[in-house]
């Protein structure tokens, strides 16, 4: 446990900025993680609009390039991105999202592109003393405003100081040289954490009550416009498509973010689509978040960050639906 | 500008401006070689996404050649094109792709000389503006 005076934070960040350091910055009227020094840092932010998954799993990246030569095609894999990075100020829910994505991308056979970025990135989290959004519900999915899942180190804002806690040895390594935190600061941090927990109202998610053929999916999906914001901005969503860009002579295979809310996501060459309408697609998102990942990994694929609740243009609210699913189940 | 040569992409309508370009060639009229010509059946065939894609791929200027109003082989193709491409030109200008980079000119099959002037006109205008690659990579 270490203590960092807020006045000395800049020197610490400048030391870390030898590698590529991402900090939360105000860009227009939304917060986004940018390289330290390019934008004005803003540490009493709520949460970034696009989660930190974008740093390790970018919106589009090239997998390999091909070119045809007289003697035949040559395949040239894209060089792996081994740039050392530090992310400072990530919220606990986004870091938990990274841990969810780790589980999917490191499942055998592991994904080399994601692995190169992931193992060269140190994630330093910033606990929420007050839940940022009124739609936050991390305590209802087994996380908390100060959970350290997916993090290498956790900072807690004590007012004039930060309490820094290292979680992994990567965390220990970058916090080397900071002075030890006195007992009272550690106790104060613990109190702040408990206070933050109490501020969040918990509701119970009972995924055994989720019925695949229930009418609720049809009713809730009627409003859905299939825009996919709920999945693009979800810290733990990692679906993608692989597209060929270029001609037969020269081009590349590119991986691009995609969402299960698009019809083209599951349409087959014959034109048959196992998820033809909004109902099946909205249901797929709920089951993937709260049932399938729970059966496979024993934890929800949802981290309760509240983005999908806040930003859905037609207010499809996962909390409201999961509560009424539980009541319907009884 | 050092040795940079503007690259102009031209969509020439098959019945008038393409024939005009032919005539300019046949009668040995000199005109700048920066132009690359794509023959389309009518200026009305030019979809705004062709023009946007041309600029994206690095064309420094785009020229659309069509028949004089009233001479269109398909009677009204150039009239639709004019309305559509006028709006496109102002939209491109709005995002920073200067108006001088995108020209529409009516060149009939017998105006070889006019075709050469049009190519000179757009090449000089674009030369003053500099390569578009600089804008994209800036």
């Amino acid at each position, binding site marked *: 446990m270490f203590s960092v005076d807020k006045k000395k934070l800049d020197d610490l960040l400048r030391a870390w900025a030898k590698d590529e350091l991402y900090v939360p910055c105000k860009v227009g009227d939304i917060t986004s993680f940018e390289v330290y020094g390019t934008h004005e840092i803003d540490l009493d932010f709520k949460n970034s609009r696009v989660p930190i998954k974008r740093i390790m799993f970018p919106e589009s990246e090239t997998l390999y390039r091909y070119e045809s030569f007289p003697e035949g095609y040559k395949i040239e894999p894209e060089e792996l991105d081994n740039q050392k990075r530090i992310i400072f100020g990530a919220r606990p829910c986004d870091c938990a999202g990274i841990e969810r994505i780790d589980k999917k991308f490191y499942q055998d056979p592991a994904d080399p592109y994601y692995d190169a970025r992931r193992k060269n990135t140190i994630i330093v989290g910033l606990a929420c003393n007050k839940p940022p959004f009124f739609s936050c519900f991390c305590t209802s999915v087994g996380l908390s405003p100060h959970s350290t899942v997916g993090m290498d180190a956790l900072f807690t804002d004590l007012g004039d100081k930060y309490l820094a806690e290292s979680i992994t040895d990567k965390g220990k390594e970058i916090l080397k040289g900071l002075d030890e935190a006195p007992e009272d600061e550690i106790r104060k941090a613990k109190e702040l954490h408990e206070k933050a927990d109490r501020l969040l109202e918990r509701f119970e998610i009972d995924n055994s009550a989720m019925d695949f053929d229930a009418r609720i999916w049809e009713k809730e999906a009627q409003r859905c416009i299939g825009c996919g914001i709920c999945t693009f901005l979800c810290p733990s969503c990692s679906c993608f498509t692989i597209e060929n860009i270029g001609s037969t002579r020269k081009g590349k295979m590119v991986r691009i973010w995609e969402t299960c809310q*698009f019809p083209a996501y599951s349409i087959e060459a014959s034109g048959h689509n196992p998820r033809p309408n909004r109902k099946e697609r909205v249901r797929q998102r709920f089951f993937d978040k709260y049932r399938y990942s729970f059966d496979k990994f024993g934890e929800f694929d949802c981290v309760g960050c509240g983005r999908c609740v806040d930003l859905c243009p037609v207010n499809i609210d996962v909390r409201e639906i999961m509560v009424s699913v539980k009541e319907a189940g009884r | 500008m050092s040795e940079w040569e503007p690259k102009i992409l031209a969509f020439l309508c098959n019945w008038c401006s393409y024939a005009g370009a032919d005539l300019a060639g046949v009668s040995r009229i000199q005109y700048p070689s920066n132009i690359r010509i794509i023959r389309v059946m009518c200026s009305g065939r030019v979809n705004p996404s062709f023009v946007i894609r041309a600029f994206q791929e690095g064309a420094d200027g785009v020229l659309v050649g069509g028949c004089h109003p009233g001479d269109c082989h398909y009677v009204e193709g150039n009239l639709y094109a004019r309305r559509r491409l006028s709006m496109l030109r102002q939209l491109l*200008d709005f995002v920073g792709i200067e108006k001088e980079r995108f020209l529409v000119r009516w060149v009939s099959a017998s105006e070889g000389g006019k075709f050469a002037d049009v190519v000179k006109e757009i090449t000089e205008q674009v030369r003053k503006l500099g390569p578009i690659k600089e804008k994209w990579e800036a």
Partner: protein
Amino acid sequence: MSEEEMKTKIRDLLVEGKIKFFVGYEKGTNPFLARPVMISDENLEKVDDLEFSVLCSNNLTLYIIEDRKKILPRGVERDERPIGLVVKGCDSRAINVLLQENMIKREDVFLVGLPCEGVVDPNKARDVWYKRSDRLNPEDLEINEKGMFVNGEKIADFDEIEADRCRVCLHRNPVAHDELVWDEVEEPKLETREKRYEKIREYESLSPEKKWDFWKKELSKCIRCYSCKNICPLCYCEECSLAKDQLQAVSPEEKSRRVLWVGREVDLLDNLSYHLNRAMHLAGRCIDCGECERSCPVNIPLRLLYNEVEKNIYETFQYEAGINPDEEPVLTTFGSEEARNEECFL
């Protein structure tokens, strides 16, 4: 006709089966937005809590297209009864554009007109709320045409949270309706049109470098989630040539003739190409319902692009989208004098 009479009329239509379902607004869990609700004979009780207020931001005409695109299981007949929906001034112009383009017939819809004096932009209201940043529960928040109140105390007046499009709106009363929820409001004054294009002329006067810097910064934020396309009632193509998020089941030959003019990578130039193409696809059609800009998760000022095209079309052809359903769409016709006009650009 008062709200109560309107609700009984809607209930009668549903009970008598004259309309397939009714799309209105209801209070949801997001206190800054009245969300769309489909009412059919199964959930008739919802007619009572239909909401007609400043929180009704969504453009409900989108759901006519959504219903049209629904894929029915084998052997199920499509229910051809009309759809009832609430339309504000801007939404009703979308109906006219759909009529002009023969996408719907007038008898396919039963329109409940909602004369409107401006709606709340949920993003703005939320930012005002979060500036207070203490854990208020949504119940004691009240938003009406005077502003935003918490337990009676005003925390923002109306034009701080009003949607930008409403400040420069020209058509407060629905241009197409079968009924009106309350009587018509007074239309905005004529010079509002100049106010409408004020901001755009500002941007037009910038130098090309400044213009490009602005759009470069804005368009690099785009993550290509296509919510601007999916929320737009006029973007109804079976298969969008710009987005490839929905594919038509057609023959292999047709599929292989699809040429992709807009790259699918999420980088500056492909984003620029996507947004410029969409602005051109909305030329002379966009009715400025503002839903694209509202739903954009990274706050790109999309309306600037579409209003620029709208301004140019109005100044060149004196044409306004969605006002007269019998008029030819502007880019699909030409004036007789244009055949003799030698000008290269209009």
